[in-house]
């Protein structure tokens, strides 16, 4: 009974220390139990990047990490970038991804994927249900490290009738993973582990996609009220960040209808209204060099071959318009060079695999 007579301040310090150690263990165990998949790897890889080491960050949905290969851009133009994104990211989460980005990085350029707004507009009762799909919310939120930004994201993005506390303390959902722990879980138990591809996911399957050209459509179609409000909120939020340039982008995809182009035109109008840059790649298939017979993984995403072409095109586009530095000769970025060399090998294997998948019906116009 060593502490019954202890002074109050000693007991208070002990209590604080006990809670502090508990919190540390709690966070560690929470991270340990979270599932390890490509979405989490993308986020934890971002946390593992050294502070202020990225020149460009691509924020958005799955098109980011399936289209943009940061190590290809490094190889061709020498700037560092990262795909800070997750699959089917609900549009209301984008601003929190941006906030998370800016906590540890001060990139020259932020690339924002606009397709979450387009998806939100087109599907599930024009946005509300799309925004509140539990799986997408979980994917978007659960990989984040514990922080006030994460708390804000949950408070503003998760409907009140959802068990919000189980989002805040995701151990409530994932504690049953205790039976399924692997060495991977241990690696990710601090919620930071380098992504060898800088967030990029290699896709080696293909589908024959159909090409539509609607670039000449100039009419606009109003976004749903929900999506327009969200986009405006994001634009206003970004306006408050003076130090960074922002480019809003629509990546190239198939199953592209005239109405989509009208939505893109409307989004372009809104984006420009707030003084930001906009790029719709669906009018630039030839400039990118996309072959719809081999470069697509599905209707929404390019495969590794398409990503290679898209990255080269976009890297050149960005390098020409923004002050993105070439760091290839900077010894401080030697790790990027090594990563690029490893990635080149992986890329070669992936392209061969893709070629095998395509068979004799087509060929990859790869380097």
């Amino acid at each position, binding site marked *: *009974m*060593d*502490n*019954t007579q*202890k002074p*109050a301040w000693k*007991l208070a310090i*002990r209590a604080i220390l*006990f809670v502090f*150690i*508990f919190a540390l*263990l*709690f966070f560690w*165990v929470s991270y340990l*139990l979270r599932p390890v998949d490509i979405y989490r790897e993308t986020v934890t890889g971002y946390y593992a990047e050294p502070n202020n080491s990225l020149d460009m960050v691509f924020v958005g949905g799955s098109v980011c990490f399936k289209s943009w290969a940061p190590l290809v851009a490094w190889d061709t133009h020498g700037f560092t970038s990262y795909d800070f994104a997750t699959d089917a990211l609900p549009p209301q989460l984008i601003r929190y991804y941006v906030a998370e980005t800016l906590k540890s990085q001060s990139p020259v350029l932020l690339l924002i994927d606009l397709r979450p707004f387009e998806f939100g507009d087109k599907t599930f009762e024009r946005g509300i249900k799309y925004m509140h799909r539990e799986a997408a919310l979980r994917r978007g939120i659960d990989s984040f490290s514990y922080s006030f930004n994460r708390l804000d994201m949950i408070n503003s993005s998760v409907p009140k009738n959802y*068990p919000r*506390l*189980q989002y805040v*303390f995701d*151990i*409530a*959902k*994932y*504690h*049953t993973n*205790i*039976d399924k722990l692997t060495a991977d879980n241990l690696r990710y138990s601090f919620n930071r582990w380098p992504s060898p591809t800088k967030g990029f996911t290699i896709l080696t399957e293909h589908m024959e996609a159909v090409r539509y050209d609607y670039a000449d459509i100039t009419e606009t179609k109003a976004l749903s009220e929900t999506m327009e409000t969200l986009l405006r909120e994001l634009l206003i939020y970004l306006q408050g960040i003076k130090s960074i340039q922002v480019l809003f982008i629509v990546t190239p995809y198939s199953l592209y209808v005239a109405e989509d182009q009208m939505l893109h035109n409307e989004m372009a109008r809104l984006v420009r209204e707030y003084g930001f840059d906009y790029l719709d790649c669906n009018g630039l298939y030839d400039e990118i060099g996309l072959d719809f017979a081999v470069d697509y993984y599905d209707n929404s995403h390019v495969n590794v071959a398409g990503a290679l072409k898209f990255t080269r095109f976009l890297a050149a586009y960005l390098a020409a318009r923004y002050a993105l530095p070439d760091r290839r000769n900077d010894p401080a970025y030697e790790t990027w060079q090594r990563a690029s060399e490893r990635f080149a090998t992986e890329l070669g294997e992936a392209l061969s695999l893709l070629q095998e998948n395509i068979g004799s019906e087509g060929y990859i116009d790869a380097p």
Partner: protein
Amino acid sequence: MNLISLQFLVFCIALLVLYYLVPKRFQWWLLLLGSAVFFLLTGTPYTIIYLLISIVSAWLAGRYIQTQNNRRRKRAVFIAEIILNVGMLAALKYTNFLLSTTESLVNLFGANLSLGTVSWVSAIGISFYTLQVVGYLCDVYWGISQAQRNPFKFALFVSYFPQISSGPISRYHQLEELLFAGHGFDHKTVTFGLQRMLWGFFKKLVIAERLTAFVNSVYGAPHTYQGAYIWLGTVAFLIQLYADFSGNMDIVLGLSESLGIRLTENFRAPLFARNVQAFWQRWHITLGAWFKDYVMFPILRSRAWAKMGRRLKTRFGKNTARRIPAWLGMLVLWVGIGIWHGNGWQFIFQGLWFFCIIVLGQLCAPLFDTLRRKLCIREKSFIWHLFQSLRTCLLFAVGLVFFRAQSLNHAFGMLFSAVTVFNPGAIFSVQTLALLGGWENLRIVLPAIALLLFVDVLHARGNSLRAWAARQNIALRWVLYYALLFAVLLFGMYGGGYSPGEFIYGGF
């Protein structure tokens, strides 16, 4: 506000901090406020009116009984107040039972009566606080306690939030001093209380909830699961109920202890009792004690019983004259306990089962003793104790079939199936394993049950684990606390689409 929720934990921590920050003379006011908030957030808010009626009427009646010299008036007010409180409980909880029973009885004679049902919402904990109020009135009437002068203090006694929803059933004279006295912060008291709460969460989330699915499956489909399934399901229910209710009590008593208010214990390692009577002296102790003190003993002391005893003595001798009135008093007690547990015939039969087992136990005690001696088993041997404890647990578990089954027919059907269908292989079948949640569940729940029994053994031998832990160095102590905390967090059944059920005794 479920006791198994983060809201409740936050509520408790906030209250605990405030409790030790406010001046001591305001502490009981804070508890009263906390109790009101808890009541309003937990149950249906308008049912607070039932609670208020009980509080106001019992306070007035208590004051009147205390100050009135006229015995007849005193008695009239006392009886009226008892009728009001018990009547309110009966109306809110047993009206449908009465309607359906009347309907069935009348229809036995060929009528086609349909009385329908009522859907009155009763206040949370009405079965518990009504007994407290009745106990208080009896104590005042009998002169055991002084009536409380302050209506707000009396309101706190009735509605004290840790115990209102599931007990223990406190006596006014035991709680009075602790409840209204100021309590300074005492590290040991607070930490011991919190540790006990944590142990309660472990019992509920790691043991009781992990057995819920299996018990629900067996009791939900008694025609599918027969014979050995029923035995296994019933033993599982005994463990589930014990972990659930005693876990509930650990949370309640732990919380109260951390506020400096020690409530009466409700469990004392019942699974190690050697006969059913002793089991009930260790299981839901305050309920049994209440019925003894306020129902059975007054009956045994009554003139009618004394008269019956005298008549029996002249006809059948001293031994019978002593036993029969006592057994009849016990019969009333067990029927009362049965009715208190629920509004169905199965609960009355549950009471009758325990009554019969206790009486048979008393009658057969010499027989068992002879048998033991012939088998050359020492009375204090481990084997004999083990046999007695297992026998007691089994007999108690059979009684629980009435408690858990959906109806009396179901209960009898299950008991019939349990003794007529011989399928011991089912216990080890793949289906049983699947029902129990597979090895993934068993490898957590079995060690947890072993830990529960180990702790109970220590308690039964008078060892306090908390006191032992407090004597260890800080590193070991904290490792133990963190281990228990994370055992609850990692192995508990909660979250991810799973909502832990309310405590089984929480809906009374």
